[in-house]
């Protein structure tokens, strides 16, 4: 007995000693960034490529440049399974460590917004989350570049008008919205309703309960009955490939089915087989490997075995979306370092960095992303920027850009955002008044 206790003690001692040996290494100058991921559960089909893209870009920056201005980024994932409850746990776990909270779900963003304003932790919800949070005056800690779901909805209407030959041709047409019956899915409804009233088209809603994501038979029968002229798909996870398959099955003209940017996964479209050719999706990043940034990821990360993604999946649409999200994080860190003169920044600095973020054409070229995305600029009052997007088309094997980058209807969306933000703040009761001063540059 005694010897075994001795052995145990020795083992424990060795363990502690080795842990102690690790600590100094971790204490070197680093920035910690935690990202909510879902590599498991019903939404993993969308979550995996995004998580891979995010991680690989950060790894590439660490490997190629030795971090941001010499400070390495410690990247960790917190697995949520796209479950809001688990996202909140993740928030609580990382709030004292991470420089920015990356919720990766609209439900998680909604839950985190009130907390983050108390904890003073910036939230970067890239093109998802609460559209009204684009109002920086009321939501100083939330950032929603490059555009919001409401911009997406207005882009869908613009696209519809372009296909029909003008906004005046919208009158009497029917637009169907297939949406996940969850906060994410319902986001575009107010803008679509307001635009429907203005331009005289009819809006039909087709909610899909999460339990019926793969059981959309009767929904598509309703679509067959209602004969909408266009369908906008605000879907996520297993809902998207099912919708594409059902559209093909029900002979709905696939070119009239347009997904929000999250319905533009390669696996989503691939599920429809050859008939899915012509399926469309809004997009704000390019797909493919023909960009210096993706080549660098291949060279420094994937080919060195430091990625979990198979090589052929690099450059898929959602993978590149993840790369884009990480680029925003890295550029905001860089901006914060410049603003504060510090190398290792804290969440307060990160908030300033995000608020002064300005990635112009020249900068995009420098970081190997020319043509990959449109320039992004965030200001003190405008935490989104309402930037351009384009309509992507599935050509049977990959996503291609169809048409030009188009501007959302900012004049329609912005007043709604401000009104809605005011409403949110009023309903919240004692919402903290913005105390953070604006940077001179923004």
């Amino acid at each position, binding site marked *: 007995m005694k010897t075994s206790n001795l052995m145990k003690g020795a083992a424990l001692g060795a363990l502690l000693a080795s842990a102690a040996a690790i600590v100094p290494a971790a204490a070197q100058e680093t920035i910690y960034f935690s990202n909510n991921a879902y590599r498991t559960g*019903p939404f*993993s089909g969308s979550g995996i490529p995004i998580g891979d893209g995010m991680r690989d870009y950060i790894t590439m920056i660490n490997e190629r440049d030795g971090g941001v201005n010499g400070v390495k980024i410690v990247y960790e994932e917190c697995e949520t399974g796209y479950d809001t409850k688990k996202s909140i746990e993740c928030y609580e776990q990382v709030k004292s460590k991470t420089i920015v909270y990356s919720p990766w779900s609209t439900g998680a963003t909604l839950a985190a917004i009130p907390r983050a304003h108390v904890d003073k932790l910036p939230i970067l919800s890239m093109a998802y989350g609460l559209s009204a949070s684009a109002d920086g005056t009321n939501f100083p800690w939330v950032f929603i570049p490059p555009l919001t779901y409401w911009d997406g909805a207005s882009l869908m209407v613009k696209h519809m008008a372009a296909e029909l030959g003008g906004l005046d041709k919208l009158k009497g047409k029917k637009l169907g919205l297939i949406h996940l019956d969850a906060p994410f899915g319902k986001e575009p409804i107010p803008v679509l309703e307001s635009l429907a009233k203005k331009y005289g088209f009819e809006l039909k809603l087709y909610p899909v309960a999460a339990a019926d994501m*793969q*059981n959309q038979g009767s929904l598509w*029968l309703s679509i067959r009955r209602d004969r909408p002229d266009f369908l906008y798909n605000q879907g996520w996870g297993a809902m998207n490939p099912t919708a594409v398959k059902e559209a093909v099955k029900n002979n709905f003209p696939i070119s009239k089915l347009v997904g929000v940017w999250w319905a533009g996964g390669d696996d989503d479209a*691939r599920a429809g087989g050859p008939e899915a050719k012509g399926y469309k999706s809004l997009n704000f990043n390019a797909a493919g490997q023909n960009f210096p940034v993706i080549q660098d990821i291949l060279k420094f990360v994937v080919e060195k075995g430091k990625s979990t993604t198979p090589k052929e999946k690099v450059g898929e649409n959602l993978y590149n979306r993840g790369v884009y999200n990480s680029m925003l994080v890295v550029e905001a860190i860089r901006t914060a370092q410049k603003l504060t003169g510090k190398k290792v920044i804290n969440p307060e600095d990160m908030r300033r960095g995000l608020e002064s973020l300005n990635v112009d054409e020249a900068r995009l070229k420098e970081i190997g992303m020319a043509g990959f995305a449109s320039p992004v600029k965030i200001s003190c009052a405008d935490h989104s920027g309402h930037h351009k997007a384009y309509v992507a088309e599935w050509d049977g094997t990959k996503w291609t850009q169809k048409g030009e980058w188009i501007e959302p209807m900012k004049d329609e969306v912005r007043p709604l955002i401000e009104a809605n933000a005011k409403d949110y703040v009023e309903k919240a009761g004692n919402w903290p008044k913005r105390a953070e001063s604006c940077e001179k540059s923004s």
Partner: protein
Amino acid sequence: MSDLATTRPAPNPLANPWIRAGLILAAAVAAILLGAQLDSSGTLYAVFIDPFQQMIQAPDLLVQTIWEGLVSGVLYALIALGFVLIFKASGVFNFAQGIMVVFAALTLVGLYEKGVPAFLAVIITLGVMFALAVTIERVVLRPLVNQPDIILFMATFGITYFLIGFGESLFGGNPKQMIAEQLFLPKGAIDLPILGGLVSLQKIDIAAAVIASLMIALLALFFQYTRIGRALRAVADSHKAALSVGISLNQIWVIVWFTAGIVALITGIMWGARSDVSFALEIVALKALPVLILGGFTSIPGAIVGGLIIGIGEKLGEFYWGPLVGGGIESWLAYFIALGFLLFRPQGLFGDKIIERI
């Protein structure tokens, strides 16, 4: 004595379920007649008149809706059967049935991706499901013989979480395409011009309906007329009594869990071909829950009839009445239908009336 007989209170006519059903029907007819008096914008009109008018005006859509409901119904029935068999044999609701669907489908597709020919992959998958049944019997059920049912029920939660983790570590969380073509499942549709419209029957749906029906028939016959079937029913009645007459509980458990595995594989192939193979399929199996409530947990015909009623009922409800409340009612409507039936038959359509003496 005769005095006593005359003073007995008259039976309450409302206690008779048929009278109650008749009253409700009469109320519905009255409401329809009342609705007809209303203008075409009223709520009553929208609930009681408009859907039926739609059915008459576009009979092709009605046929199509019923067909979709029938196909889902047959598939629900098949899933429900997996539950019923295990419930009969072990007295537990097998919470792991959903994940077994995912696990079977992932094994099949995963093997194919590793280069195993499609049909060999099916056979190996069946082997895996058998091994799983044996393992569950050895590791989970055998040590729990004669424990309260709730313990066994909790054990199926354990199996679920184990299979989620095991499946994810083996196959990853990526969605995969079902190898429908490689298994010679038909593609495309048959368009039938019916009643002045077009009814489009997907060949894969026809195949699903036929295969699932065959499966159900085979299982029903097997468990009704074979020695093992009788043993199963004996086990269902009492573990102890069955053991005392020499029925091997272990053998029966392996057989029913393996059968549930086969059912899971077929369900996985059919639903997987309709969307994709991912962990989201797990939820589909829970669609069987209202079917079980309706059909009774212990009845094979109950699972079949219940599946069809739920399948057709929810599709008709969603299609014709869903728009009134903004759609998306399918998932709770199934439970609603089941509850409606329970009002009249608390033990389910074909369930055993359990009389417990205190």
